[in-house]
Structures are given as C-alpha cells and as structure tokens.
C-alpha cells in the first residue's frame, strides 16, 4: 500500500516535471472578454465562436462583455489579466493598432499581448440611398469633384477603420467629402435612409436588408475581390484606387501566456471556424473567415500598427 502511494506520488511528480501546463490545461472554465456591448457585431461573432468551440474544447468558455472607451477598457483588462489561459479576449484591428496611437493605454504594440488566432475579416462597403443621382462610384466621385465638400459621408466613428478608409479615399481620389461620424452602424444607417448624409461606409450586414428592400445601393467595396452579397459593386481597385483595408477580429491572451496554452486555444478555435454553424453565420453576414496562427498574425498586427500610426498622424488624430 505504502509502496503504491509512494510510486503514484513519484509518477505524479514526474508528470508535473515533464508537462508543466499543457496536460492540465484547461482545468476550469475560461473567460472570453468581449470589449463591445452584448448584441454588437463582435459579440455575435464571439458567441458563435464559443458555441462552435464546444466540441473541441473540454471546458466551457464564457463570454463577458466589458464595453466602453472604443473597446480599450475590455482589452486593457485582458492584457492585465493573469497569463494562465483562463482569461482571453476577442479584439479587433482598430482597438489594437489604432487606439494606442490616440491615447495612453496599458498596451502599445503587438508584443504587449499574445495573438492567438485571426478569425474573420469584415469587409467594408460604400453605400448611397437608392434614389441618389449617382448610379456608380465614378459618378459619385465626379459629383464630389464638381461640388467640393457638399457631399456628406458617414462613418461609425472617428478613428474606426471605416473612417480611415474614407480619409484614404479622399486622398486617393483627390475629392473633398464632408465626414460625419456617428456612434456605430445603428445610428449611421438611419441617417443615410433619412437623407441626412449622401454616402456611408458600412459593413455588409448593416446595409444588406436595406439593399434588399430597394432603399440603399452599394456603389463599391473596399476589398480585393468583389463581395458575393453585392456582385454588381466593383472593388475600389477596379476603379483605380488601391483601397482594401478591412476590419478583422482575432483572439488575444495576456503577454506571457505559455505558448503551449496558446496552441490549445488556437487549435480548438481553428476547428470551430470550420463548423457549419460558424461558416453559415459568416456567409450570411458577409464575413470572410481567415484563420491565421500566432506568429503570422503578430506580423500582420505589426504591419497594421505601423501603417495606422502614419495615417493617424497624417489626419491629426494622434495624441496631443
């Protein structure tokens, strides 16, 4: 008996020595912090992801919403959490690579947290009201040239990727458009429908029901290829403007989270991205699934970080 106890203790000690964490992780439920309110676009993706991860992850993952300050509050909480794999976060490219250039935050560059996996790209489209005289993007830009500043284009907020796209369009096409920032798509879409603005940068799911109802027309998409939801709308590249900047969502962990744990989460999430329920959600909302592992993702984040730093400074939106 004593022998048995002794040998099991020895075995246990050995097991602990050989595989310090990976074998044990996850022992308890994991918290996934979503830095935007429940019911928002990111929250919907987070909840579908968690649902799709169920068969591939042995413990429950709970989505907790910590909204506020353009996503930086929830992100800060993830970054400052204990790096044990039990607190992770979902985030977006702007929260990670635009906001640090605008305010002082507990994180700066992509080395201040561990990227886990890239999830989806959210394309951006340019829409007008269906009764607007401009039938094509070229016509819209032509109208803008002949009446500088007269046409008003909405975005879901200053410093969002959708806003940055508009500023780049202005610079690329050499036109003067008046930017009107709103607080999210729920505000900017009614403003377009009511004719308070002439154009709008939005995500496909925000305008799709109104396109189907014949109230709104998509003139162009900020994508490499045409969007299957709006096959008639050309890409800006087709129109001669190199504008393909999109939003992407990803998972992050606090800095110092063991690579083995990051890998466990990454593997489960990668399988979840292939689950039919997740694929259907992405297709319907016009998202493009792209799973990208920790290191290539960090490269991409650094790339976005440096490009956005230049853009923010050029637009005068940086730290004072």
């Amino acid at each position, binding site marked *: 008996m004593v022998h048995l106890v002794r040998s099991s203790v020895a075995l246990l000690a050995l097991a602990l020595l050989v595989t310090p964490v990976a074998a044990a992780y996850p022992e308890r439920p994991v918290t996934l912090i979503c830095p935007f309110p*429940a*019911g928002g676009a990111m929250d*919907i993706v987070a909840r579908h992801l968690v649902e799709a991860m169920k068969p591939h992850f042995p413990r429950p993952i709970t989505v907790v919403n910590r909204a506020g300050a353009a996503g930086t509050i929830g992100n800060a909480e993830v970054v400052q959490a204990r790096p044990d794999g039990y607190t992770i976060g979902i985030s977006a490219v702007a929260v990670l690579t635009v906001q640090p250039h605008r305010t002082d935050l507990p994180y700066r560059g992509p080395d201040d947290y561990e990227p886990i996996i890239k999830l989806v790209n959210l394309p951006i489209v340019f829409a007008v009201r269906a009764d607007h005289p401009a039938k094509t993007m070229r016509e819209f830009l032509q109208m803008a040239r002949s009446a500088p500043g007269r046409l*008003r284009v909405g975005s879901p907020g200053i410093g969002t990727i959708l806003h940055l796209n508009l500023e780049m369009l202005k610079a690329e096409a050499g036109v003067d458009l008046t*930017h009107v920032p709103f607080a999210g798509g729920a505000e900017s879409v009614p403003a377009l429908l009511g004719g308070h603005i002439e154009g709008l940068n939005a995500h496909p799911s925000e305008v799709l029901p109104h396109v189907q109802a014949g109230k709104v027309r998509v003139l162009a998409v900020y994508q490499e290829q045409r969007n299957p939801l709006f096959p008639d709308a050309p890409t800006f590249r087709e129109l001669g403007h190199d504008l393909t900047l999109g939003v992407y969502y990803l998972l992050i962990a606090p800095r110092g989270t063991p690579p083995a744990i990051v890998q466990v989460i990454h593997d489960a999430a990668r399988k979840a991205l292939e689950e039919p329920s997740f694929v259907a959600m992405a297709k319907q909302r016009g998202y493009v699934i792209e799973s990208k592992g920790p290191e290539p993702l960090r490269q991409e984040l650094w790339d976005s970080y440096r490009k956005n730093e230049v853009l923010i400074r050029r637009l005068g939106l940086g730290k004072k």
Partner: protein
Amino acid sequence: MTAVEGLLYGLGVALAPANLLACFVGVLVGTVVGVLPGIGPIGAMALLLPSTFALDPTAALIMFAGIYYGAMYGGSTTSILVNVPGEAASVVTCLEGYQMARRGRAGAALAVSAVGSFVAGTLGVVGLVFVGRWLADAALHFGPPEYFALTVAGLAVLSRLSGTSLPRAALMVGLGLALGTVGMEPMSGVSRFTFGSLQLSQGIELVPVAMGLFGIAEILTLAEQRGRLPRVSSVRLRELLPSGEEWRRSLAPMLRGSALGFVVGLVPGPAAVLSTFLSYAVERRLARRPQEFGHGAIEGVAGPEAANNGATAGALVPLLALGVPFAPATALLLAALVIHGVQPGPLLASQRPDLFFGVAASLYVGNVILLVLNLPLIGLFVSLLRLPQSLLVSLIVLLAMVGTYSVNNSVLDLWVLVVMGVLGWALRRRGFEPALIVLALVLGPMMEKTLRQTLFMARGDPSVVLGRPLTLALLAAGLLAVLLPALRRARGWTPAQAPAGEP
C-alpha cells in the same frame, strides 16, 4: 395581409405553447429585474443572450421583448414604496408615488401604475401594427440637427416641471450637464475629467446617481429629522386599491401617457426617461388641482408609468419596421434575432410575418400576464412597509448598494452613489429639485453628440440648426417655455390669478 388579419395570425403564433412559455419567462424575469434596483432589462438580456441559442428566433424575440416591457412594470415598486428608483425611467414616479405612499396610498399608487402600464402596453400593440411603418418613416426625417433641437427644447420645457424658480432649475440642469461631460468625449474619444482612470472614462453611470439623489438622500433626511418612512397599519384590500375618484383622475393621464410614450419611444437613446418627464410635465399643466403635485397627485404616477411602457412599444417600431435598433435595449432584441441568422429589415413584416405579428401580438399577451402577475403582488410589496423601520432602512441601503454594484461590478459606482446621496440630501434642504440633475445627465450626452454631428454636417456652421423648419419649431417651443412664466410675472399675471377656464 391586412393589419387586423396579421394581428389575429400573430395571436395564434403568440399563443403557441412554446411562445407562450417564452413570453411568461420573459415577463417574469422582467418583473424581477424591474423590482430589484440596479440590474435592469439590458443587463438581464445580456446575461440571457447565450440561452437564446436553444430557442427559435420568434420565441427568443418574444422572451426578450417580455423582459424589456416587463421591467417597466416592476420599476415603479421601489420608487413608490421607499423612494429608490430602480432605473432612470422610474425617477419621476418617485416624485408623486412616494408622496402617495407617505399618505398611506402606496397600494393605490402601485395599482394605478400596473394598470397604467397595461393600458399603455395594449395601446402600444395597436400603434405598432397600424401606424408603426408610417411612424418609422417619419422618424427618419429626424437627423442630428433635429435631435439636437429636441434635446434643447426638452431641457427648457422640462426644467419648468419642478415648480422651482428658473435660476434654481438652471443650476440643477447645469450640474447634470456637467456630470454628463465626464468620460470619453462622444466624437473623437478624448478623455475628460477622468484623472487617468479607465473606469471614469466610461462616464458617470445613471443608476447610482438616481438611487443616490433619491433613495440615499431620503434616508439621510429621515435620519436628520428623526422622521419615519411610510407606514401601513393594515393591508386590507379596500385600502390597497384605488378609490373610485382615484380611478377617474387616472384614466385620462394613462391614455395621454400611453400615446405620448409611444411617440417619444421613437427617439433614439433615452426615450423611456424622456417620456416619463414629458408626461409628468403635461399632467402637471393639465391637472385640475396642480397644487397637489409634489404632495402625492395620482395623475403624476398614472401618466409617467403609462408613458414608460408606451415608450417600450414605440422603441420596437424602428426595430421591427426598419431593422434598426434606436436604443441599447432594442439592440439586444436585435441580437436575439441575429444570433439565429435573422437580419431584420424593412421587409421583415412581409418576409417573416410570424416574427413581426407574433411579437406584436405577444406584447398584448405579455401585458395580460403582467397584470395578473403584478396585481396580487401589491399586497405583498406594501406589507414590506410593516417591517420595523430600523430593518427597512438598512435593507434599502443594502439594496441600493448591491443594485449599484451589480450594474458594472464597479466600486467607483458605489462612491458615486454615496456622494450623490449626500448631494441629494443637501439639495433638498435648500429646496432644489434633484430630478433635473437626472434629466440633464440623460439628455446632456445626446445633446452634445448631436450638436457635434450637426457641426460636422455643416462644416462648422451653426446656422444650419435654424435653417430647418422642424428644428426651428422645436427651439421656439423651448424658448417660449422659458420666457412665458417670466413674461406672465412681468405683467402680474400668475396662474393663480388667471381667469377661470384658462388652462
């Protein structure tokens, strides 16, 4: 499908067992979170969002809608009994409801607010189905300049509701507006008055301000004056229910409040709060005995309580007719659909009549359940006032603290509660109206944001506000509300001396 056919079809959908159950669960949860201060319908829906994966979209939407309007029933309970507004939409109910309780009419106030909610919910269904589409299209004519003018006019008109002098009212409004500037500036995200705290950058939360200014302040006043909370000696049915005269006085305010609330419900953001203040102001102006206001006028409970329920029905209009949520609560209703892959839009009523009419009809079903659920509870709630005062007071403080903490799990919010409690106590001693702080805190951020958007639209030219007929009319109404009393006074023409028949 005509509206009447649709409604009958919807009734069939709403009464299907699974949907009926969803409706019951929804309104039950709504009542509970409404009665308990702090966590409101938004928090409850956010917590329950994962559970909707297991439901079909119609049932999920019916359940969430039930939580939303159910909370408006319960919200008045603590306002009336112990002067603790469970949420911002119940602040106005404190003004008259609590005074009624002090006169021993707590039961009547609770009954009137439940029936008023029911009337508004029922009329809301009619509005939603028959004029919803038309109203939603009309609401689109409101852009940032119109909303800015609306908030300015709202503050001007509603600051007159308290009966305190103009400078005193202006001081309270100014204080509320100042509190509203704490946190991230709504357009460019610059932090203001945050002293480097990420918590403060989220702004000052409404719930602790309301509970502090009313609930905690009331307790401090009691302690100072060695006063008593409302008591009831016996809980007899006759005393619980409103008298014939109280019913008669409540009927017109309920109807007016329902209609007003429904229309105001289409205003993005703080529609429910705005509707209660507006209804209170209207009833005060129309009352036969305006001198009773401030001392427990039943009109001041019936109107606002109907209005906040009307507003929830109105807020469903943009969601169901356009697919756009105008308020945080309806954004969660949208989420319950989107999670199932239903993206509502202008075509919802024709593409998914089961959803559109089912939810509309469930509104009526849910309101019947709520009435049946709430009327018997009145006796129970009123008998809480039989607890020894020492126990009741500690319970109220505990409830306010737990409720505040439950909203954001933030210790900072608890400090806001305490500071506002002391402030509310001091203001009342000096005869100021703390409700105006809440109103300004609600409208201030919206006013600032829409002004900024207006200026963005016009490239910095403020004259655009005056160039649109709707904004001009709204601003003129606001100006009139401020100037009229002063003019009357100047001519020695006070309402007391007004000839008979003058409103």
